[in-house]
């Protein structure tokens, strides 16, 4: 039991470290497109974090949250890229 707790905390630590890298790029990005790329990476890492939580607790409830976060990440990045390209999202 303690061994499985240890290994799952290793996965969680790796994904949290990846999220920290993406957050650093989100805060310190030299330009706006770097920040958008950091936000996209943060969304993907959050999806993976929720999947790992779901495997750890053995419940499929986390899957729905992961799906919603993946969908929101796509919409957010597409809208921000459109905003950077054209200056407005819906024209």
């Amino acid at each position, binding site marked *: *039991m303690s061994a*499985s*707790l240890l*290994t799952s905390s*290793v*996965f969680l630590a*790796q*994904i949290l*470290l*990846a*999220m920290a*890298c*993406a957050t*650093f*790029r989100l805060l310190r990005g030299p*330009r*706006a*497109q*770097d920040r*958008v*790329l*950091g936000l*996209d*990476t943060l969304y*993907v*890492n959050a*999806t*993976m974090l929720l*999947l*790992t939580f*779901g*495997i*750890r*607790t*053995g419940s*499929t409830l986390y*899957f729905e949250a*992961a*799906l919603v976060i*993946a*969908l929101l990440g*796509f919409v957010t*990045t*597409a809208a*921000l*890229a*459109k905003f*950077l*390209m054209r200056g407005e999202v819906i024209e």
Partner: protein
Amino acid sequence: MTDAADLPAWAALSTAILLLLGAGLALIGSLGLLRLGSFYERIHAPTLGTTMGISCMLLASMLFFSVLQTRLVLHELLIAVLMVVTTPVTLMLLARAALYRDRSEGCDEVPPPPPPLSSTPDLHCGSPRTPMSAREAAINDKHAPT
């Protein structure tokens, strides 16, 4: 944690290996996002996590829940299809937006825009020669101060 204890050893081991691979790929991709030099190098790095990393995670989740519930659990394929469809679209949009911004600011590190369609004059039926040359002149003016 209570359910994961009565998993057979082979399933637990392969789930752990797949999870380790996925988390490691996400970490490598995010480190590349942190460390690489320019934006066009950085945009390649997180795709490690968005393709192979998340597919390893989804395979681990499918294997775990299929063994745990002793039936085929495949709803993780929804996230897989979503990622496969949306990742190229978003990154292509973002790269085009960055290229447009760099070009409109006259940055030297990006290639110049492709020439307008003056090499195929038969596509335009005679009249738009002068608007085309005006457009070329405008583009050249925009690039002159670099």
